[in-house]
């Protein structure tokens, strides 16, 4: 089963998946692509593009097996974990597993859209705004999902809703609060044992320290936990391969919840 993982610079969902892959030891060919140049929408050999085209996560990594595109960082991490013969990153006990999945869902539904919006406004907007119209259209015309394309357009136009920006900053603070609360009993990792939740949370949060610094003030347990996750060889190894400042790399992510 030939597997090719197309991923961006090690931040956000690409970092979560690269770390989980390294932890799993599963043999996968990795190819780095430029997510902000829209390369994800022109991958070779994809015959079943549904998950790439309609994934909730936006511009996250894509694993291709037998032409089928596979996406969503938490589920790719689970996939590698389930192929692995190393100690699992998923709790065996069903209730502990439920807690991990609930945690990851909170992160991907609340933190990820917020972090992606703020990160993109802070670093990606400038390059997209100065891109010639034809080049931008040529790039975004390949994007199948109308709502993902709209998120690229908002970023280029700078038409982000100020209320959403404010709410996104609050969501980052809430995520840090939740980490601090979870770590309050002195545990080393978020779920007790090291799990996918540590990598998923780290990947979305680490780049926010410079964008929403006040969220991290007086949060010593979270700071120490971020340092522990960052020191894992799986994470440090991925970060070492970055072409520049990894935490400053963002591409359009999940949409902000449209239901109220």
């Amino acid at each position: 089963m030939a597997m090719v993982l197309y991923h961006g610079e090690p931040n956000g969902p690409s970092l979560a998946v690269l770390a989980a892959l390294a932890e799993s030891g599963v043999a996968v060919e990795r190819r780095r692509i430029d997510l902000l140049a829209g390369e994800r929408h022109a991958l070779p050999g994809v015959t079943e593009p549904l998950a790439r085209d309609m994934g909730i996560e936006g511009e996250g990594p894509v694993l291709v097996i037998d032409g089928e595109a596979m996406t969503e960082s938490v589920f790719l991490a689970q996939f590698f974990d389930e192929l692995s013969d190393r100690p699992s990153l998923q709790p065996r006990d069903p209730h502990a597993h439920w807690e991990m999945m609930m945690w990851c869902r909170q992160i991907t539904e609340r933190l990820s859209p917020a972090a992606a919006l703020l990160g993109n406004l802070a670093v990606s907007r400038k390059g997209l705004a100065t891109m010639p119209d034809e080049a931008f259209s040529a790039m975004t015309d390949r994007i199948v999902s109308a709502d993902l394309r709209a998120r690229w357009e908002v970023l280029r136009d700078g038409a982000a809703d100020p209320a959403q920006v404010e709410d996104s900053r609050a969501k980052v603070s809430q995520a840090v609060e939740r980490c601090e609360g979870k770590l309050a009993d002195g545990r080393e990792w978020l779920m007790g044992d090291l799990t996918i939740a540590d990598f998923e949370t780290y990947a979305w949060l680490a780049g926010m320290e410079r964008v929403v610094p006040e969220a991290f003030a007086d949060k010593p347990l979270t700071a120490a936990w971020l340092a522990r996750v960052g020191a894992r060889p799986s994470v440090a190894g991925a970060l070492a391969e970055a072409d520049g400042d990894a935490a400053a790399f963002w591409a359009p992510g999940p949409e902000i919840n449209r239901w109220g």
Partner: protein
Amino acid sequence: MAGVTLYHWEPNANSGKPMLALMEKGVAFDSHYIDMLQFDQHRPEYLAINPQGTIPAMTHGARVLVESTAIMEYVDEEFPGPALMPDSARDRWRVRWWMKFMDQWLAPSFSMIGWSVFVGPMVRQRNPAELEAAIARIPLPERRVSWRKAIHGTFSEAEMAESQRRVARGIELLEAELGKREWLASDSYSLADINGFNLAYAIPLSQPALSNDEKTPNLLRWLRAVYARPAVKQCWALGRTDMVKRVAILEQERI
């Protein structure tokens, strides 16, 4: 063994997912019907179980579980009975992918339409002061916004058009996927089918121009196959409103 209690509304959307998963597994449970239209989910006795005031919730002994898709995964892992997740890791990925796509992209669009045509009109006739007091008791601010829009019918034209676009696109995507294999995400019946049926059972009735035997033969084949399962009959029998009786359309030979 510790008992299971499920707090649920109709066998529809989120409530129907753990109801049907428990029935497919053959797990006996105490059923507590929470009447969403009477705002039972925001009363103190329910908030004592789930402070977020969302339905469904499940207790298993001292454990309290929320979030319908996550509850289904727990039910499948915790109890004996037929496996509702496939054996292969790649198929499991596909089950999870479809559930997230439905939960976060497709279902909110169906439910915006459902709330504006069904839930809103049903509660709108009540005393405005009583309704406002009921809204004020909702713990999650996002849900307060949603309820206000549903009750006062103030979803914008653009919001409704976007939901209708997603419903139409979702029907096309379900039809295409069900043309690839017997069940939605793998060759065996799984949590993705339970999730999807709860979302899609009334599509041929609510979207007749987009879904019928001619236009979406695979979607109709699949809906009928799920509906034929004894657990589904047992589950939908617990419904009390006309909304869930729409499932009877699947008994027609030609739609």
